[in-house]
């Protein structure tokens, strides 16, 4: 009936609708009856960086902040430039950690930059730092002095002069030093001394680390690890003259463009 098909009346519309609904229901029933011998539906996976980067969270924590007790450093809120340099260093062998190198060995620069930006953008609240041991007053005082004033006699700049007055880092590539486990800090300064951690040349941090005596490393790591982390531990701007002391003269850094 070509005419009827071309313009069905109201009653025919109703019947057509009913027929369609019944057909759909039948198809559904048929499908569910067959579902028993069908493989289960694939897992639904969110297309997010957080999901892609699940392996990182296993050690660095869901909020990128790890724990102050162990070894693993916080990465949340560190400057993206710093994080990218570290990812490249691990991938290309300038910094050594078996798991990090294994994860990054075959990843491209663009993906590493995405990872860096992802963790740099996190703003994680921090628990109180671990209390330093009771008998550590002398070491704490020495650590505080090195971090805040340095040691001019040995041409050691204060940590604050590059890492920011609040030690929360400096854009684009100087990391914050708070919220890091003491063991991690000691290991990094030691690795710089032996050359198993390197930054882009000229490697300013290697120069500084090599001037540190073992008791200096222990003291400054103890003091840094015992400082509370500010509510928003974001890195200061590169040229924030108020929050940072002037960059130490004669200390060029390959990883950080010279700021005014």
């Amino acid at each position, binding site marked *: 009936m070509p005419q009827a098909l071309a313009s069905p009346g109201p009653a025919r519309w109703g019947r057509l609708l009913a027929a369609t609904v019944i057909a759909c229901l039948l198809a559904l029933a048929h499908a569910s009856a067959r579902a028993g011998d069908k*493989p*289960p*539906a*694939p*897992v*639904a*996976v969110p297309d997010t*960086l957080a*999901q*892609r*980067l*699940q*392996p*990182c*969270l*296993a050690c660095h924590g869901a909020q990128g902040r790890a724990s102050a007790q162990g070894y693993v450093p916080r990465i949340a809120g560190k400057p993206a430039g710093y994080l990218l340099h570290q990812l490249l260093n691990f*991938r*290309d*062998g*300038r910094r050594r950690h078996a*798991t990090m190198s*294994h*994860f*990054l*060995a*075959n*990843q*491209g620069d*663009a*993906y590493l930059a*995405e990872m860096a930006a992802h963790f740099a953008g996190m703003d994680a609240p921090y628990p109180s730092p671990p209390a330093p041991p009771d008998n550590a007053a002398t070491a704490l005082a020495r650590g505080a002095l090195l971090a805040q004033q340095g040691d001019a006699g040995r041409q050691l700049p204060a940590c604050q002069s590059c890492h920011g007055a609040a030690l929360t880092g400096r854009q684009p590539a100087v990391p914050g030093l708070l919220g890091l486990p003491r063991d991690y800090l000691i290991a990094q300064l030691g690795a710089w001394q032996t050359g198993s951690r390197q930054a882009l040349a000229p490697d300013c941090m290697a120069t500084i680390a090599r001037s540190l005596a073992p008791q200096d490393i222990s003291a400054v790591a103890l003091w840094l690890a015992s400082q509370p982390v500010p509510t928003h531990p974001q890195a200061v701007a590169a040229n924030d003259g108020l929050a940072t002391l002037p960059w130490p003269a004669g200390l060029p850094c390959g990883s950080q463009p010279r700021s005014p």
Partner: protein
Amino acid sequence: MSPRRLLAAIALALLAWLLWPPQAAPEHPPDAAPTAAQIERGAYLARAGHCAGCHTARGQAPYAGGRGIATPFGTVYASNLTPEPDTGLGRWREPDFWRALHEGRSRDGHLLSPAFPTGNFSHIARDDARDLWAYLRSLQAVHRPNTPHSLPWPLGTQAALKLWRAAFFWPAPDTAQAPAPGTAGRGAYLVQGLGHCDACHAPRTMLGSVGSLATVHSGQAMPAEPWLAPSLASPLGDGQALGPAPQLHRFLKTGLSDQHAALGPMADVVAGSTQYLRDDDLQAMVAHLLTLNPQAAAAPTATAAPMPAAQLAEGERLYKQHCADCHGAQGQGAPGIYPPLRGSHVVQMPSPANLIRIITTGGFAPGTAGNPRPYGMPAFDLPHTELATLSTWLRQSWGHHATPVTEVDVLIRR
């Protein structure tokens, strides 16, 4: 001649042959200037051969050598291939390079270590060798003296290499032209020659000689690495360990297929080599690889004692806790993102080495043009008992019948 004298003469002749000094190649005239097209083809062939996989050290100048290749006999250091005259190939000419590929001899005549897969590269045709040479000459010259191999005496000596080669190496026929893309024989040429897939995937004897890719075996141990390179001829489960063809093609091109993610040494191969191959060459290689597995329908052979009920429940609990979020309650996975474990070749391989390795170290599929932002798997630092129980559960769930994994299996592989 008395028999004793004859024997002495033979011994003397053998000694003379063993100790005869290497003969340097004659001086060849300078090479003709390479064309841009030759260099481009050579760059492609260098990818197909994954030359940089050994000849570039991590984070160092491309093709300047220095990477240590662990072998069961000691560490062999890849050489500097850049055109630097004193430490690289700057004084070499094209015939020298051809001889190195085809006969495994350096310019000064000494025999190259069999870690350099001469048995494969001997199959490379002259036109491809010419293009590869054009590419190597176009590289930036880097001064980096070669690192001496670290092999116990007498393994590194020329006499030892002569004996080894007398037993295990014959140069392939000298061919002028490689099979053209799209022609018959192209896949076998790439797999057996430049691709040197058998260097890892074929079984090796105790003396380091390489068998056939078509051998069904339980996985070839990677030297100094806790990975097994699976047999490419193994019939397993539904017989689709490698294929079907479009999936294997995608695996080589992107590092991921619906069934597999490339991890471990194969991730390096995909990232540095196969992802760059043209689709027609990949198709040819895949077609050849799939001919290695003629008994595709063979049933799994392992017959395992079923797990005790208590262990079964514990295995399921561990799976739900650690694995099910990504790999699915039924092991169905998210094909192309998280590989399915149900029916997985890796899960059911005769040896649990790769399964244990993957659980304990996790990892990312390689970042490739086709999959530039891979999803990753965390490393699971589980106690030995839990790892053994979980691995056994995986190997015996969803219709799998692989052998159980003991704590000892776990201990020796961590």
